[in-house]
């Protein structure tokens, strides 16, 4: 099933918005669970980086974006693609190496891009997408498009030169850009305590002369509210914002992770901060959704993923015959 046009606005502003926020968080959760399952059954090649536990961050951010607004994403990028409106079947098909996959099987999990939803691509290089988003924001400014470019990255990327150079360019040129850090506390095994000499990553904003804000990355409402302020600022020509969304990945870094660097207790504590039931409780309390509606939305997300997997499994495998012709875009006469 193809994605709905993106719904913009506050997740608790209406039943429709609450439904959207919950549906997209559940789509991400169910997608990641399906990926883990496909991997476990030996149907998926390569590796995987799951974002289970982090669903509120991309969902809240993308509810402040139009379909024309652009994003760059990371190796842990499935959630960003889905939140920006990517087609689930083409995503699963890519992971399964199928012709109809977003990259025709040439990219896999770490390289899904979707031009129609403004997604300039996930990136296998930590920090690789940040300067690219700055460039997209530069193009928006030069072409007077009125769009913003959001770069999603993790805490690990904030120690890359790419982060520094892009943040500085965006700041001096007042680019319509948002630097969105999902601080999930670990760059693979390196904790933020080991990798940073500052306690609050948002303090880095000061070094570039831009606002640095902290949000609870497991609260889709809080993420949206900060995102909307940053988008408004960017679209007014006032420049970029650094958002630090505090969150946590429940699963290991990738398939090779044995969780030697963190405790079971820590993981358990964060599992109790699951963004999905937290939002359900709030939506019900504020009478935007009923328990019955929430159950239905969760089922809808599951059904969409099951349908996507079934369709993708049946699709034609990618064919090596076209590889050499795919390197360059043809020069038009």
């Amino acid at each position, binding site marked *: 099933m193809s994605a709905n046009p993106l719904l913009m606005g506050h997740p608790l502003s209406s039943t429709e918005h609450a439904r959207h926020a919950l549906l997209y968080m559940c789509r991400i959760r169910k997608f990641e669970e399906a990926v883990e399952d496909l991997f476990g059954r030996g149907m998926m090649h390569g590796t995987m980086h799951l974002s289970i536990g982090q669903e509120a961050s991309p969902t809240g951010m993308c509810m402040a974006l139009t379909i024309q607004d652009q994003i760059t994403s990371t190796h842990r990028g499935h959630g960003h693609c889905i939140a920006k409106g990517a087609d689930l079947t083409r995503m699963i098909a890519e992971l399964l190496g199928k012709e109809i996959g977003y990259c025709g099987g040439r990219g896999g999990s770490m390289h899904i891009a979707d031009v129609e939803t403004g997604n300039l691509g996930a990136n296998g290089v930590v920090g690789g997408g940040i300067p690219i988003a700055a460039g997209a924001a530069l*193009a928006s400014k030069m072409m007077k498009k009125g769009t913003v470019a959001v770069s999603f990255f993790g805490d690990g990327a904030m120690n890359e030169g790419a982060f520094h*150079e892009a943040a500085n*360019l965006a700041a001096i040129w007042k680019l319509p850009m948002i630097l969105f850090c999902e601080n999930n506390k670990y760059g693979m095994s390196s904790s933020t305590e080991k990798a940073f000499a500052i306690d609050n990553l948002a303090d880095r904003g000061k070094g570039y002369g831009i606002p640095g804000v902290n949000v609870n990355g497991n609260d889709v409402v809080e993420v949206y509210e900060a995102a909307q302020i940053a988008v408004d600022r960017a679209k007014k020509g006032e420049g970029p914002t650094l958002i630090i969304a505090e969150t946590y990945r429940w699963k290991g870094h990738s398939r090779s992770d044995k969780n030697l660097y963190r405790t079971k207790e820590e993981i358990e504590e964060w599992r109790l901060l699951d963004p999905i039931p937290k939002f359900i409780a709030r939506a019900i309390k504020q009478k935007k959704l009923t328990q019955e509606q929430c159950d239905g939305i969760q089922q809808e997300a599951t059904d969409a993923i099951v349908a996507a997997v079934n369709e993708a499994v049946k699709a034609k495998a990618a064919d090596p015959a076209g590889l050499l012709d795919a390197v360059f875009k043809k*020069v038009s006469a």
Partner: protein
Amino acid sequence: MSDRMLTMAEAVREAMSIAFDERPEVFLLGEDVGIYGGAFGVSGDMYHRYGSERVLDTPIAELGIVGAAVGAALSGMRPIVEIQFSDFTAQAMDQIANQAAKIHFMLGGALHVPMVLRTPQGSGTGAAAQHSQNLEPWFASVPGLKVVVPSNPADAKGLLLAAIDDPNPVIFLEHKLLYKIPGRDPVPEGSERIPLGVAKVVREGKDLTIVATGIMVNKSYEVCEKLAAEGISVTLIDPRTISPLDMQPVYESVEKTGRLMVVQEGPAHAGFINEVIAQMAGSSSFGSLIAPIKRLAGMNIPIPYAPQLEKAAVPQIEDIEAAAREIVKNWR
């Protein structure tokens, strides 16, 4: 027919100006390309003619600059990015080799990167090891990059216009010793393109085929003239683009001359020119060779500072002349 003799810096500036006039989405960004006019004066007065929004001065941040160019190229612009010395592309290599080069292929063809990265390279200015390298093989070995090495102003103009038109990332390597000297041929007026991937037969002869890149084309040309006076005639081929590489004229020439010499400035080990040798070795023209292939290249050392050391590090006219003479005399 025009008789305008321009330097390569002037020809490159003219090509950029034509592209600026033709397409509003073309812009130039880089360190000191604005009011300073570029470290080698290539952008010159463009800042005054086109303004600070299209001739964009950047901080010293090569990775960020190239990344911004990639992102802008993905989003409807057509950036020309100048990296002040090709040596500094090392700072930007993630965006060049991992991002720009791979995006079209890896992302399934949905996006492409119409970006030109222009950068001066090469030795001869006494700037020592971190400002003088020849990095042709770095770029030529990355699938997804087109690589242009112009040897003269007229070619630089036509090739750069084609590179700006190209929907793919193009690395444009300008030898800094060529910036200030006029070429042998006039630079045509107008906006004619020279297609990428087409080698140029600079002169034709029957005794020896020389394939040379960049400034080595000029040095080899002088040798050809000198040898011609002695009755030794040489075919000189300038690939002009090293990715893609046009070998057909090389095969055709070697079938006539039976002797092949290749010349590059960069170090011999794993150098670009070895690709010419490898393709020749695997071709049906190989049987036409009556002499071993001669390779003349830089020493396998960083470029040293002192003038006599710097000269010793890369092939000079005398070296090319001696090698050419030897191969023709010794193999009959």
